[in-house]
C-alpha cells in the first residue's frame, strides 16, 4: 500500500496539485473576507457570521473544486492510457485505495485552511463573540465530510466516463444548484446531498429588513445530517470500488 501511495505521489509530481489545492482554500477565504467582517455591529457575531458565510461560499466553490481534484487525479491515467499497465502491476484495490488516500489528503487542505482562516479573521478583526471550539470543530468535520462525498462521487464519474466532461459538467451543475438550494425551502435543500454545507450548519440567521442587520444564533448540531453525508460517502466509495473492479481495460 505504501508503494502505491508513493507511486501516486510520483504521478502528482509536476502536476501542480498543491497550487490547485491551496487555490481552492484561498478563493473561499478571499470570498468570505468580502463580508463586512470589520463592521462594529457584526463583531459580536463574528465567528458565527464567518461560518455562515463560508457555508454559502463552500456551496458554490467546493462542488466544482472537488470535481477538478477528482478529474485531475484520474485523468493522468486516461492521458497516459496507463490503466492497462497499472492493472498488471498492482491490485486494482491498491490503485483505488491509493487514489482515495491521496485524494482525501488533498480534500483535507481546504477545510483546514478555512479553519485557520476563521481563527485568523477572529484575530484580525477582533471579534467579540466568544470562540466556540466545538462549533468550529463541527464546521470543520461537516465541510470535510461533504467535500469528501463530492470528491469521491466526482472521482467515480471521472473513472466511469474517461471523457472528463460529465465529471466537470456535474461539478458546475452541483455548484449552481447548491447555491440555489440556499434560497429554497429547507425541505427541498435536504434532498440535495451537495447542499449539505447549509444543512449541517449549526448557526442560524435572522435578517431584519428594517434595520438591515443580521443576527446569528446557535442551533443544535444536526447530527443526522452529518450521519447522512458519512453514510453516502461510504455508499459512493463502495460503488467506486465496484466500478474499478469491474472495469475492463
Amino acid at each position, binding site marked *: 500500500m505504501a508503494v502505491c501511495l508513493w507511486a501516486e505521489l510520483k504521478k502528482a509530481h509536476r502536476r501542480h496539485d498543491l497550487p*490547485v489545492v491551496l487555490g481552492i482554500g484561498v478563493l473561499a477565504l478571499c470570498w468570505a473576507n468580502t463580508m463586512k467582517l470589520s463592521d462594529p455591529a457584526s463583531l459580536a457575531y463574528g465567528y458565527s457570521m464567518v461560518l455562515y458565510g463560508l457555508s454559502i461560499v463552500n456551496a458554490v466553490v467546493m462542488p466544482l473544486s472537488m470535481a477538478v481534484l477528482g478529474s485531475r487525479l484520474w*485523468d493522468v491515467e486516461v492521458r497516459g492510457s496507463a490503466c492497462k499497465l497499472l492493472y498488471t502491476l498492482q491490485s486494482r484495490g491498491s490503485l483505488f485505495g491509493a487514489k482515495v488516500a491521496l485524494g482525501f489528503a488533498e480534500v483535507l487542505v481546504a477545510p483546514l485552511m478555512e479553519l485557520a482562516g476563521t481563527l485568523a479573521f477572529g484575530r484580525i478583526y477582533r471579534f467579540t463573540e466568544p470562540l466556540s471550539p466545538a462549533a468550529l470543530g463541527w464546521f470543520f468535520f461537516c465541510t470535510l465530510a461533504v467535500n469528501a462525498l463530492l470528491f469521491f462521487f466526482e472521482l467515480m464519474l471521472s473513472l466511469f466516463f474517461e471523457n472528463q466532461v460529465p465529471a*466537470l459538467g456535474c461539478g*458546475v451543475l452541483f455548484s*449552481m*444548484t447548491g447555491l440555489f438550494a440556499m*434560497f*429554497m425551502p429547507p425541505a427541498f435543500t435536504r434532498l440535495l446531498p451537495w447542499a449539505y454545507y447549509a444543512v449541517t450548519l449549526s448557526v442560524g440567521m435572522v435578517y431584519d429588513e428594517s434595520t438591515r442587520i443580521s443576527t446569528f444564533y446557535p442551533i443544535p448540531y444536526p447530527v443526522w445530517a452529518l450521519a447522512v453525508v458519512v453514510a453516502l460517502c461510504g455508499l459512493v466509495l463502495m460503488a467506486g470500488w465496484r466500478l474499478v473492479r469491474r472495469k475492463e481495460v
Partner: protein
Amino acid sequence: MLRCCIAAENRKLRRALIWAVFLLLPLLAGVYGTVNYLQNLEILTPGWYNLWTQHTLFYSLFFFAPMTALYTAYLWRLEHLGHNWNLIMTVPVPRFDLYLGKFLVAWKMVLLTQLWVFALFVLFGKLWVGLPGWPPAEILFWAVRGTLGGAAVIALHLVISMLIRSFAAPILLALAGGVLGAYFANENLGLFWPYALMMSGMNSNRAEDLLDGRMGPFLLACLVWTLLAFAAGWLLLNRRDVRSE
C-alpha cells in the same frame, strides 16, 4: 479556409455530450429563478424585469464562465490528447483560422445558449408566472449583448486551455474569475475584468439598464479583452514548438 476549420470543429464535437451542460444549466437557473421570484413577490416589484434578474443573476455571475471554460477546455483537450497537435499543425490551414474556428464554434454555442435562456424566460414568464403581455424587447437585446462579454471569456479561455494542458484547472480558474467578477462589478470596475463583462452585458443585477449611456465603454472593453486574448494566443501559436503529448 475558415469555413473548413469550423466544419472540422463541428465534426469533432459529435458525440461529445457537452451540449447537455448548456441545455441543463440555463434550465435549472430558469426554474430556480422562477421559484424564487414567486416566493419573493412581496419584496420584488412584479414584472418582466425582476423575473429576468432572478433568472440570470447567479447564472451570469458565477456559472457562465465555468460553463464556457468547460467548452473551450474540451475543444483543446481533443488536440492535447492522441498526438493531434501534429495533425492540426500539418494541415494546410493558417494557424489563425484554426484558432478562430474554435472561437467561433464556442461563440455560436454561447449565442444559442443565450437565446435558450431568453426562450426559457419568456416561457416561464408566460406559462408559469402568468405575466401579462410580452417581455420588453430590450431584454432580448441584453441577452444578445451578453454574448459580447461572453466572447471575451471565450477568447481568454482559449488561450488558457491551450497553454494549460490540464482539462480541469482552467474551469476552476473561471469560477475564481467569476467570483472576483462579482467583486469588481460591485466596485463598479466591471469593465476592467473580463469575467464581469458578461453580467454587465446581461444587465442581470438590476432592472434599469446599467449600461445606459455607457454602451461605448462596454463595447470597447469587450473588444479590448477579446483582442488581447487573441494576440496572446496568436503569439503562443507562432512562437512555440508544437508538443504533441
